[in-house]
């Protein structure tokens, strides 16, 4: 590995944490580059928040080291780690005005009053809430409060920004717009940012890199597109986006047998690992990648299925399809609304589809 020109903004080395007998983190190592936006993504209890709190020094690891810009901060209390943090609950001080909240971290730093005022103005401008400076937090909407919390965290110009599920308490619409706002702000300031979220859509939309976690282990690290298109484990495949899983048996290299049909898949670098013939395996395909109707006619990997149900979901329709054979395996398939109308398919009717070899992912059989 080439020597990096700059040390990582945050480097975790074998972080392990347990609460009593419960192991929250099983030796997590990770590095975050300067200016990068990284999301810790995983279901509740996967250890993502614990990991963030260990970086922040709010929780103490049982073993492992936390490095920031090449400096070991493992034994430093939170106050000496130079980061800003935003919590899901905003944690704004209710008895202080917006301006005093934003200036809270500046007041102890021997900065002049005028200087503080200028900085507070600047930050409130940055989050577009300068006109609210004399209000109390409870007089603002949830989205506004979270922007104030962001301004407060950024006021002392920290080297690192930590976001602990910052959008989870907000309405769907506010969440969408704040997503863009936070991301734009982060780009503009170039501040290294780590965000914890359980919302895969949020992670896909905001992160430079996603760290998918489960049971205290990092399952996969990569850019959103890579995590989505090339999930390294069934867990990642299932957690990020929708995924169909089909139990099959490996045939000759690059093929698998499913309910009497041979299906081809792509092997090689950046794609699937070959599986020895006769071994059980799991085929996976995303609902929107299944080809149906006329387009399926000349394609490879064709299957005849029956439509068990069709659920209208606005821009697309989700079909539940029953595969031939007696194990009752089903596939979920998303079809654009207008395409579905053209198909003329009905619940209970037959539907031919194709599982394109390039879209098929292969995992060792799940127990």
């Amino acid at each position, binding site marked *: 590995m080439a020597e990096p020109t700059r040390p990582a903004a945050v480097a975790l080395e074998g972080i*392990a*944490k*347990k609460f009593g*007998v419960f*192991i929250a983190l*099983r030796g997590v190592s990770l590095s975050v580059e300067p200016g990068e936006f990284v999301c810790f993504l995983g279901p509740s209890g996967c250890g993502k928040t614990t990991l963030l709190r260990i970086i*922040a*020094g*709010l929780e*103490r*690891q*049982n*073993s*492992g080291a936390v490095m920031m810009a090449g400096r070991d901060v*493992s*034994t*430093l*209390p*939170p*106050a*000496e*780690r130079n*980061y*800003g*943090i935003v*919590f899901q*609950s905003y*944690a704004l*001080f*209710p*008895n*202080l005005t917006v301006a005093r909240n934003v200036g*809270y*971290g500046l*007041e*102890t*730093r021997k900065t002049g009053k005028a200087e503080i005022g200028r900085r507070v103005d600047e930050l409130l401008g940055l989050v577009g809430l*300068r*006109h*609210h400076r*004399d*209000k*109390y*937090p*409870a*007089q603002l909407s949830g989205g506004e409060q979270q922007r104030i919390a962001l301004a*407060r*965290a950024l*006021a*002392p110009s*920290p080297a690192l920004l*930590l976001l602990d599920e910052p959008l989870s308490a907000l309405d769907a619409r506010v969440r969408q717009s704040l997503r863009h706002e936070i991301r734009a702000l982060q780009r503009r300031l170039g501040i290294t940012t780590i965000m914890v979220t359980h919302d895969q859509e949020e992670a896909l939309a905001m992160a430079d890199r996603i760290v998918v976690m489960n049971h205290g282990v990092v399952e996969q690290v990569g850019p959103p597109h890579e995590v989505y298109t090339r999930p390294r484990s069934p867990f990642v495949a299932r957690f990020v986006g929708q995924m169909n899983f089909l139990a099959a048996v490996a045939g000759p290299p690059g093929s698998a047998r499913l309910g009497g049909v041979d299906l081809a898949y792509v092997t090689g670098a950046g794609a699937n690992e070959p599986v020895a013939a006769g071994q059980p395996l799991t085929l996976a395909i995303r609902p929107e990648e299944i080809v149906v109707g006329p387009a399926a006619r000349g394609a490879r990997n064709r299957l005849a299925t029956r439509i068990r149900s069709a659920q209208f979901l606005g821009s697309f329709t989700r079909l539940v399809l029953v595969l031939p054979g007696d194990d009752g395996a089903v596939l979920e398939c998303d079809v654009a609304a207008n395409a579905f109308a053209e198909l003329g398919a009905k619940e209970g009717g037959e539907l031919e589809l194709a599982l394109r070899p390039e879209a098929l992912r292969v995992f060792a059989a799940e127990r």
Partner: protein
Amino acid sequence: MAMIDADLGAAIPDRTVHHRFGKEDVVRWALVAGFAAVLYLFILLPMAKIVWRSLLDNDGRWIGLANYARYFGTPAIAASITNSLFVALLSMALTVALAFGYAYALTRTQMPAKGLFRVIAMLPIFAPSLVQAFAFVYVFGNNGIFTRATGLNVGIYGAKGIVFAEVFYCFPHAVLILIAALSATDARLYDAARTLGASSPKTFLTVTLPGVKFGLVSACFVVFTTVITDFGAPKVIGGKFSVMATEIYNQVSGQQNFTMGATVSVVLLVPALLAFVVDRIIQRRQYALVTASSKPLIPARAPLADGVATVYCGLIAAVITGIYTVILIASLVHRWPYNMGLTLKHYAFDTVGGYTPLWNSLHVALWTAVVGTVLTFVGAYVVEKCRTAASGPLYLLAILPVSIPGMVLGLAYIFTFNAPGSPLNRFYGTLAILVVSNVIHYFTVGFLTATASLKQMDAEFENVSASLGVPFYRTFWRVTVPMALPSIVAISMYFFLNAMVTLSAVVFLVAPGTELAAVAVLLMDDAGDTAQAAAMSVLIIGIGLGVRLLYWGAMKGVTRRTQAWTQAGAVPVAGGQP
């Protein structure tokens, strides 16, 4: 999978990585150590001393459980145990039953004058426990007006009188708890019961009662503990009917038999501690009935029910008002009930040296309010926010005092602070020891109130401050204290009022020069100067009511100051919009 887990678990060290010890940690640990030292010195050590003392004879020789054998073996003294239990259980049943009706009328009917009824029910809080007993003696005693007018002596001295006096003494505490329990309900439950066709009695049994069962249990324990540890009422009206609290007083003050006093004290600790433990176990099972989506219950008008409620509450309110009217009149006439001409001569307090006890009481009550509030609030903060291994034990110690009867605490302080050769001796005979014994005696409620208000605050406040490089004590002062101001004012009020009226915690600790008003009431009654005792009671009640009014004013100020950030949105702020 489990195997791997066990292996990995063993590979991860149990100790966490330690953070460097900083300036803030020094402050944090100093607070923990300071709080621990206070609790040790004024709770743990005195309690250990009193238990130890009960195992010695009067010359300090170890005699094991011989004192207990003598206590249980002497029928005259042992009777105090069953007497105490009898009186406490009967008072408990009567008080809670009466208070439930009263609280129900206040919360679940549309009867008129609710505010007035509420205020009247709270009156006994402002009086020492003796006062209720005085009033019953003035009316039903051998020379009471009822007795003289009808020639009928109801035999008020004894269990009967104690129970009457205690019922009215404990009434406000039970009412307060039950009002809180009855208010915490969800109107939707009643809507559901009605749509399912449940009758009123059935709704009462299946919705109302289950909803308030924890409140009922709590009220029972509070009344039971208060009665069994009360000393004032039995002293005044108990006659020859001996209860454990008066027994301790007789052994210590009458016969100077400190070891027997200690023995009875330890025995008296048992039911109080038991009540405390059972209450805690039951309350732990409590669940939240009211959630964010609950709808408040607004009682419907029902002329019949409202009328019954008004009559019921009117009767009880009349008795309570009557009690204090009798006391007021008795203090203002030449000689109740023979010469009812008005005079102020009883307000001279010549037998106890004038107004010194009253000024002492004010002094002690003010200091109790200040010291008690600071100590309970900082203590609650230490336990709640400076999470250390000490938090658990400190919490237990802090809530223990509620189950220590005042007389037991006072006697324990004698053993601790009046021991020959002890450096702590200088403390004895000062007003300071009275302040401390009051603070500890009433510690639990203040501490729990402070804890509750701290728990309501976002746990991340301290974390945010740390990330901004602001020390925790600065955030404590700038955010925590201002936010908790309503609770802080309420706690100081609680300490002040109780310090004004308490007798049991201070009766053994007053010394020449540090007499207190409530003790003076007892002494004047003992000396036969009941009119002066009544006059002093009137002044104590008057001061309590006055301070309560000040408190209302202060609370209004606090609310006005804080409403901008509590009930926001509705409050327009000048210059807010561009």
